[in-house]
């Protein structure tokens, strides 16, 4: 049962991934619509980042994580290297947690 569920999840996930890739050829998209695809991806990724930064499950994530992400975001905006952004975000969050903030 467990293995069946895992395989079903795997197959469904793979089918989702592959169908986007394959569908692209079948869709006769106008130039306009084609330009929307990267925008749609940008919207999804931004939403992922925002929900991941602010929410934990269906509640707010507390203080430490949003603060760390904010620091990382500011560094990214100032064009800091990617590694610096990631390490700073994690570091700030870890320190705030160490200090007892949620």
């Amino acid at each position, binding site marked *: *049962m*467990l293995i069946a*569920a*895992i395989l079903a*999840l*795997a197959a*469904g996930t*793979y089918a989702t*991934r*592959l*169908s*986007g*890739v*394959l*569908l*692209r*050829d079948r869709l006769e998209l106008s130039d*306009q619509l*084609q*330009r*929307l695809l*990267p*925008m*749609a*991806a*940008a*919207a*999804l*990724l*931004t*939403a*992922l*980042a*925002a*929900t*991941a930064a*602010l*929410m*934990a*499950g*269906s*509640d707010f*994530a507390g203080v*430490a*994580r949003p603060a*760390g*992400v904010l*620091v*990382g975001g500011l560094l*990214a*905006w100032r064009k800091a290297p*990617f*590694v610096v*952004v*990631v390490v*700073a*975000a*994690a570091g700030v969050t*870890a*320190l705030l947690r160490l200090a007892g903030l949620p």
Partner: protein
Amino acid sequence: MSTPKRTLRDAGALAAAMVAVGASFGAIAIAYGLPPWTPVLMSLVVFAGGAQFLAVGLFAAGNPVAAVLAGLLLNARHLPFGLAVSGTLGTRLRDRLLGSHLMTDETVAFTLAETDPARRRRVYWLVGTTLFISWNIGTVLGVALGGAVGNPDTLGLDAAFPAGLIALILPALRDRETRLVALTGAALAVALTPVLPAGLPVLCALLGLLVLFRPGGPLRPGRPGSQPARPASGSSPAHPGPGSLPAHRGSGSLSPRPGSDSLPLRPGSGSLSPRLDSGSPVPRLRSGFLRPRPGLRSDRPVPDTWRPAC
């Protein structure tokens, strides 16, 4: 630093975090009492961090059907991702079959941050492979080490993933229309998170595209020939060459640039490039790859915040 080198370094940073989060995934699955092969198999064949965390919690709760449905809902965003990176994967069937499995939030973000098609392709495979390997290594470590694996939240890794995504998408957000769409979508997603099951809020971000239809917007009905979203970002001629990349990460933009992503590569660009692979499961953020498990904690074996889709 050349782009591949920088990408390698950036992907390496993400990979290190993924090993840690993968380890926590493996350890949590074991803590839930699942057989050791379960997390290992999942990381290999599902390769989607958020869905994996969600699913093990529901397996542990004795609800495998819900685990499958919730996981699939969480992963539904890969369909639009597939549409967006299809051109990058090329037309060769083998590349598409393999490349699809490596598709993750981070891979897509890294890829779309590049503007040059050949570079995009390299980045997709490079990041995908790196993340696939690190995620699976992490999982095995977690299974082996069990309880010795700490909570990655202690290290602040739950902040690392969203911050990394932000760094990757910022260049695209320089385009005014893309920014409006993305921020509207993100606001909707955050607002809906408390009331919708995991996965749906992020999908609702696609509704942000509706701002293009606002009065005066680029897609307002009745404006024949109106152009959607032009990359506003500074200097972008129709085909942004490498020289026009926005400074940060070398990157370009996720945004609609004529000449980017799927468009130009599409038909015959089949197999220009070396295929590495790509993918990325990062657990810990919520619906993404990185995003794991709503409300799961190792000490809380049952995901209490998950609600069945209404």
